[in-house]
């Protein structure tokens, strides 16, 4: 019997990426749900033995890009993350808040590459596959994204300098 691939084991990482990408828990899970439905509808197109995780992220990326095109950027959604209460004096919470805010300020293409490589730890080749661009483009976008983040994090909050150590 030809076993269907189990997508359940990919859910936690798809959810993490979607959360970081959208900055909003409900919107992120909607994106994951859409991705699963797309994946199961197109499963016949997936080559068994090839990278299922990269394929799922490709589907999610395409859905996300289509959403952005349809609805325009959702910067306000990301800003909502700033309203979450932060208990006093907790450096981790402050760092998390800063990273949310900085991510929200990155252009989509930079945010995507920063998360695929920095958070999801895709290789440059896999990230190129997910995005459908050459590796050279991945490298130049990654470079811009990291420098952009560095300025955002350094410029906005002096406390950040302690966290970054």
């Amino acid at each position, binding site marked *: 019997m030809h076993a269907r691939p189990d997508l359940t084991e990919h859910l936690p990482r798809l959810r993490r990426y979607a959360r970081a990408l959208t900055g909003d828990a409900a919107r992120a899970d909607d994106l994951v749900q859409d991705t699963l439905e797309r994946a199961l509808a197109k499963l016949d197109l997936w080559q068994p033995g090839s990278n299922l995780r990269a394929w799922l992220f490709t589907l999610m990326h395409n859905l996300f890009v289509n959403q952005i095109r349809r609805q325009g950027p959702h910067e306000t959604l990301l800003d909502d993350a700033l309203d979450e209460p932060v208990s006093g004096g907790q450096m981790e919470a402050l760092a998390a808040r800063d990273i949310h805010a900085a991510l929200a300020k990155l252009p989509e293409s930079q945010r995507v590459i920063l998360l695929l490589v920095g958070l999801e730890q895709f290789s440059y080749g896999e990230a190129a596959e997910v995005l459908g661009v050459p590796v050279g483009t991945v490298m130049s976008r990654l*470079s811009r994204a990291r420098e952009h983040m560095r300025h955002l994090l350094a410029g906005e909050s002096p406390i950040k300098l302690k966290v970054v150590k």
Partner: protein
Amino acid sequence: MTDAVYEHDLHAYVDGALPEARRLEVEAWLLAHPADAARVKAWSAQNQALHAAFDAVLGEPLPLQLARAARRPSRASPFRAVAALLAMTATGLGGYMIGIHAEQAALAPTHLARDAAIAHAVFSPESRHPVEVDATHAEHLVAWLSKRVGTPLHAPDFSAQGFKLLGGRLLTDEAGPVAQFMYEDRIERRVTLYVRRAATNRQLATFRHATENDVDVFYWIDGDFGYALSGQIGRQAMQQLADAAYHQLTSATRR
């Protein structure tokens, strides 16, 4: 003579993507180029900050809706409402079908039985990750699930019936957090106990039985919580387990 170090080498250094020899060359370069070293340090810190901010998502309970969607057959409609009504195949137990109503009234006792049967069908066939926390950490498991579900839970002991606790996982459904305990017998048949907050505190005087597409479910409501035991081991065997669970759990909560 060391090759010049380029921008892409610095990124690959941060991402651990360099071969050892090149990594050492970049390290030597960074000692001599403090500006590059500062950038590399900042980029590494970004990676750490991303993990610090978002890794918690990995440990969150899986929304049951997504767990269902991950298992749906490929003919699922793109229209979610329609898709939710389609049958779901559980691959591991021989492909039985379960109807899903993802609609409201999820809290009613009949939905308790159905949701429990679905969760059973989704997770009991798992060979690699049937549970999130295994039974070797039973104390931690019970404490963790109790905290998340919001009531002191007890994992019933089915050793007299030949089933040992395999572990448990946390789910969410329309009613909120759900604890699922999983048990297995010597021939690897599995039963699951599903515990969640009930909508009404009306008591079901004793347990009830439902069959959800070949899954036997015995369920009852005790106080604010609904319990449902699901399995495919024959109705009589299920009833014995349900008896044991009911008596252990009701006496435990009324101590």
